[in-house]
C-alpha cells in the first residue's frame, strides 16, 4: 500500500495560510512526519496552549496556532503542521494557566517556552558570540535530521573493568592555541586528536556536560582579572536532548548533531567509548528569581521539587532540584537517556549529584528509588555503563550505599581522599589503601570491584599536579573572595606553595604524580584520569574553575614537552595496566588460592614479606597479585608485586619468593629519573637481588614475576 494514501497525511484545519490537523500524542517533542511535523507537549495544569513558529533567527514569530480543544488528549496537546521548512523552523509554546507561586504554579502566557523534548536549541550557536539580549525567545527549539548514517557502528560494550576513563571538557581540551587544531574547542577538534588519545592509551572519554547550556548564565566582569566570568563547565542544563551547538564547528549551520555523531563514530572505530556526564539534578532556570526558559512555565509542580510554600528545594546547590521521581519527569529522563544511547550510540553515563535521583518529591531519600530502578532495568540501556556521583549538595552521601540494582558504579570519593592523604604522608591509612587497591570490598562487598570508579583528580578540585604543588586553594580569580570550592583538598605542596625553581621540589612533585598514577593503574576497579594530568597541567591552585574560559581550563599542549617525563610515564603505566589482566578482575579478590598455584590471588606485605603493617604509624604497604589467578584463574598473567612507600626515608622491602623458575623483574621505580622509572612490557630488567628491594622515600615500585 502506498504510504501517501493515509488520510492523516493531509490537513483538516487552516489559519493564516498554515495548514494543520490533530496530531499524535506520542512521541513527545517535534517529530518529522510525511508532509509535516508532529508537535506534542504535556502540561498537567495549563488551560490553554499555543504553538509559536519562527523563521530561523527572526525577531518575531510568523505564526501562532492555538491548539483547538479537540487536539488535547488528557494533559497532552498534539498537532501536525504541514509544509514546514525543517531547517529554517524554530518553535516554542505559550502556556496559559494559574500564577500562584505559593501553590506552585507559575504560568505566564507572555513567555515563549522551549520544548523540553527539543532535539536542538538555537540561540547559542557559536560559543560566547554576543546574544541579542532583547530576544523574545532566546533558547529556541529546533528540529534535527535523525537519519545519520552510522554504517556498522555500534556501542563498544567494553567490559567495564577494562576501561581507562579520560575525563574531558570539550572546549578545554583543544581551545589552547598550543593544540594546533583547525576548529579549536569543538567536537571536530576532538576528532582530530583521536590519534593522541590512542597513543596515550585511554579507551573511554567522559565528556563533561554537552547538553545545551548557556555559557552566558550568571556572566559578569571578573572583579579580580577584569575578564569575563562565564559558565564554562556547563553543569546547568537548558535542554536535555540537545547537544551544545557552541561545541560544534558547524553549530552556526545547525549541524551539531551530525558533528557529534561523527566524532562518536570515529572514536568507536578507534576502540574508544564515549561516556556523557549528565546533569539531571537541576536545570538552568535557577530559583524563584531565575529566568523561565521551559519547565517552570510548562508545569512547575511537575518538574521541580517545591517546598510547602512553593519555593524551590535546593539539593543541587544551584537554586532548584529536578523532581525526577515524579513519574512524568522520570519518563523524560528515561526517554532522554534512551535517545542518547540509541540515536547517539553513547556507551555510558555519569550522573552528576546522583544522590538527588534517589530522593522523593519532598526531598526524602527513598529506599527503592523508581528512577534508579527503571534505569538499571531498562532494555535499551541494558549494556550502557551507569555511573553515579553518589552524593548531593543537600548532604546525602551514598558512596558504598547508592541503590545499585546490580548495575550502578560510583565515583569513589573515598578512593580519591585516601590516596591523597597517603601520598602526602598522613598516618593511619594502610587499611584504606589496602581497600583502594582491591576495589574497596568493604564498600562494595556484593557489587564487586567494578562498582568503584577510582580517581585521584577530576574536573572538580585540584589537578593532579596541583595536589602536589598547593596546600591551599587559590580561588581569588573566581571573584568570591576565595570562599568557593572545597577546603578538604588533602594536598601537600612538597615544600613551597605554587611554582618554584627548586629542582628538588619539582622532582618530588613529578615523583608524587608518578606514584599517584602507578597506584591508580594497579588498583582493581575502573581508573579515571583527568584530561591534562598526563601533561602535568596546573590551574595554579584554583580548585573550582567552573567559570573560566581561559588558560585555567584550556589544556596547554606545550606542557607535554616540558613535562615529557610525566607524559612518557602516563603512557607506559596505562600500557602496563592494559597488558596485565591480573589488574582487572571482575570479581573481588579472595585472599586464598583457588587454582592450586600455591599462592593466594592477593597477598599483603610490608617491609617484611607476608607481614603487612596495618598499625596507625605505618606508611608502608606492599601487595602481590598471583598471575595464575588472573581473571578469576581463567588466564595466566605474570605475578605483580607493588611496594608503596609514603615514608620520607628509603626502606628495604623484603620480597616474597616466586614459584620455581620465576624471577622478579623491575617494571616501575618512581624514585628513578625518567628513562629508568618505567620499562615497557617485555623489557623489564631482571633484579640482581631477588630477596629485597630498597624502595626510595615517597616512592612506588612495581615488579613483575615471570
Amino acid at each position, binding site marked *: 500500500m502506498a504510504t501517501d494514501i493515509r488520510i492523516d497525511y493531509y490537513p483538516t484545519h487552516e489559519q493564516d495560510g498554515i495548514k494543520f490537523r490533530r496530531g499524535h500524542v506520542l512521541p513527545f517533542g517535534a517529530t518529522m512526519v510525511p508532509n509535516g511535523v508532529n508537535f506534542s507537549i504535556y502540561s498537567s495544569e495549563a488551560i490553554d496552549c499555543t504553538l509559536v513558529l519562527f523563521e530561523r533567527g527572526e525577531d518575531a514569530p510568523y505564526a501562532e496556532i492555538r491548539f483547538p480543544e479537540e487536539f488535547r488528549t488528557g494533559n497532552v496537546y498534539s498537532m501536525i503542521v504541514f509544509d514546514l*521548512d*525543517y*531547517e*529554517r523552523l524554530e518553535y516554542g509554546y505559550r502556556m496559559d494557566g494559574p500564577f500562584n507561586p505559593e501553590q506552585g504554579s507559575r504560568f505566564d502566557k507572555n513567555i515563549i517556552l522551549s520544548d523540553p523534548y527539543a532535539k536542538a536549541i538555537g540561540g547559542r550557536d557559536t560559543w560566547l558570540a554576543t546574544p541579542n539580549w532583547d530576544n523574545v525567545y532566546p533558547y529556541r527549539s529546533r528540529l534535527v*535530521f535523525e*537519519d*545519520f*548514517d552510522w554504517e556498522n557502528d555500534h556501542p563498544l560494550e567494553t567490559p567495564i573493568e577494562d576501561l581507562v576513563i579520560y575525563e574531558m571538557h570539550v572546549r578545554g581540551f583543544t581551545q589552547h592555541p598550543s593544540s594546533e587544531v*583547525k*576548529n579549536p574547542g*569543538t*567536537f*571536530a577538534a576532538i*576528532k582530530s586528536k583521536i590519534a593522541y588519545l590512542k597513543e596515550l592509551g585511554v579507551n573511554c572519554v567522559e565528556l563533561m556536560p554537552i547538553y545545551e547550556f548557556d555559557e552566558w548564565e550568571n556572566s559578569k566582569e571578573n572583579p579580580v582579572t577584569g575578564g569575563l566570568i562565564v559558565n564554562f563547565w556547563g553543569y546547568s542544563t537548558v535542554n536535555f536532548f540537545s547537544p551544545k551547538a557552541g561545541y*560544534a*564547528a*558547524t553549530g552556526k*549551520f*545547525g*549541524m551539531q548533531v*551530525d*558533528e557529534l*555523531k*561523527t566524532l562518536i*563514530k*570515529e572514536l568507536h572505530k578507534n576502540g574508544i567509548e564515549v561516556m556523557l556526564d549528565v546533569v539531571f539534578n537541576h536545570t538552568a532556570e535557577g530559583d524563584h528569581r531565575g529566568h523561565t526558559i521551559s519547565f517552570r512555565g510548562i508545569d512547575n509542580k511537575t518538574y521541580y521539587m517545591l517546598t510547602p510554600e512553593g519555593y524551590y528545594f535546593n539539593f543541587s546547590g544551584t537554586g532548584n532540584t529536578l523532581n525526577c521521581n515524579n513519574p512524568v519527569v522520570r519518563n523524560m529522563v528515561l526517554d532522554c537517556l534512551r535517545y542518547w544511547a540509541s540515536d547517539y550510540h553513547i556507551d555510558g553515563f555519569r550522573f552528576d549529584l546522583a544522590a538527588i535521583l534517589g530522593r522523593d518529591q519532598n526531598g526524602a531519600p527513598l529506599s527503592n528509588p523508581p528512577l534508579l530502578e527503571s534505569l538499571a532495568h531498562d532494555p535499551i540501556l541494558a549494556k550502557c555503563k551507569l555511573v553515579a556521583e553518589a552524593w548531593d549538595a543537600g548532604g546525602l552521601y551514598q558512596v558504598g550505599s547508592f541503590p545499585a540494582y546490580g548495575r550502578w558504579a560510583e565515583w569513589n570519593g573515598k578512593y580519591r581522599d585516601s590516596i591523597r592523604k597517603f601520598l602526602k604522608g598522613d598516618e593511619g591509612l594502610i587499611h584504606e589503601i589496602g581497600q583502594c587497591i582491591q576495589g574497596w570490598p568493604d564498600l562494595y562487598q556484593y557489587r564487586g570491584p567494578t562498582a568503584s570508579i577510582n580517581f585521584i583528580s577530576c574536573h572538580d578540585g585540584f589537578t593532579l599536579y596541583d595536589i602536589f604543588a598547593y596546600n591551599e586553594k587559590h580561588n581569588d580569580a573566581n571573584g568570591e573572595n576565595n570562599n568557593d570550592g572545597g577546603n578538604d583538598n588533602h594536598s601537600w605542596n612538597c615544600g613551597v606553595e605554587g611554582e618554584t625553581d627548586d629542582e628538588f621540589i619539582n622532582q618530588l612533585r613529578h615523583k608524587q604524580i608518578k606514584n599517584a598514577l602507578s597506584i591508580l593503574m594497579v588498583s582493581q576497579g575502573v581508573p579515571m584520569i583527568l584530561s591534562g594530568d598526563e601533561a602535568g597541567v596546573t590551574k595554579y591552585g584554583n580548585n573550582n574553575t567552573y567559570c573560566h574560559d581561559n588558560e585555567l581550563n584550556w589544556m596547554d599542549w606545550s606542557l607535554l614537552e616540558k613535562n615529557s617525563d610525566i607524559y612518557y610515564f602516563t603512557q607506559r603505566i596505562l600500557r602496563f595496566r592494559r597488558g596485565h589482566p591480573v589488574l582487572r578482575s571482575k570479581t573481588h579478590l579472595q585472599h586464598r588460592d583457588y587454582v592450586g598455584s600455591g599462592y593466594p590471588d592477593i597477598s599483603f606485605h610490608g617491609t617484611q614479606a607476608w607481614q603487612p603493617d596495618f598499625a596507625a604509624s605505618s606508611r608502608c604497604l606492599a601487595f602481590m597479585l598471583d598471575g595464575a589467578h588472573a581473571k578469576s584463574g581463567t588466564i595466566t598473567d605474570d605475578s605483580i608485586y607493588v611496594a608503596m612507600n609514603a615514608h620520607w626515608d628509603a626502606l628495604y622491602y623484603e620480597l616474597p619468593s616466586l614459584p620455581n623458575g620465576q624471577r622478579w623483574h623491575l617494571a616501575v621505580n618512581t624514585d628513578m629519573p625518567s628513562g629508568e622509572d618505567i620499562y615497557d612490557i617485555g623489557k623489564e630488567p631482571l633484579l640482581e637481588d631477588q630477596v629485597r628491594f630498597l624502595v626510595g622515600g615517597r616512592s612506588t615500585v612495581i615488579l613483575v614475576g615471570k
Partner: protein
Amino acid sequence: MKVTLTDQEEITVVEVTGDIDSKTAPEFERNAKLATDRNDKIAIDLTAVEFMSSAGLRVLLMVYRNIKSQNGKVILVGVSEDIQDVMSTTGFINFFKIVGTVAEAVVILKQD
C-alpha cells in the same frame, strides 16, 4: 539554484549552480533522482555552489545510497574548501570521492 543534467555515454553529469539549502534541496533531489534513474554512474558538479546546508548534504548521501544499491558510482566535482570542511566535520565526506574537474570524474567513472 539551477540544475542541468547532461549525458556523456553511460555517465550522467549533474551540474548545480547556486546555493543548496532547505528551499532548493527538493529541486536538487528531484533532478538527482532523474539522473540516478537514467544511469548508475553519476558525476555531481558543485563547482558553482558556494553554500550547501544540511538538507543539501542529505540529498548527496541519498544519491550515494541509491547508486550504491545499484552497484553504481558517484563522484563529486569542484567542491569548495568551505563545503569540504563542513562535510569533513559532519562525516559526509567519508562516502565520496571528490575530484577537481568533470573530465577527471568521467575518466574515473569510465574505468569502472
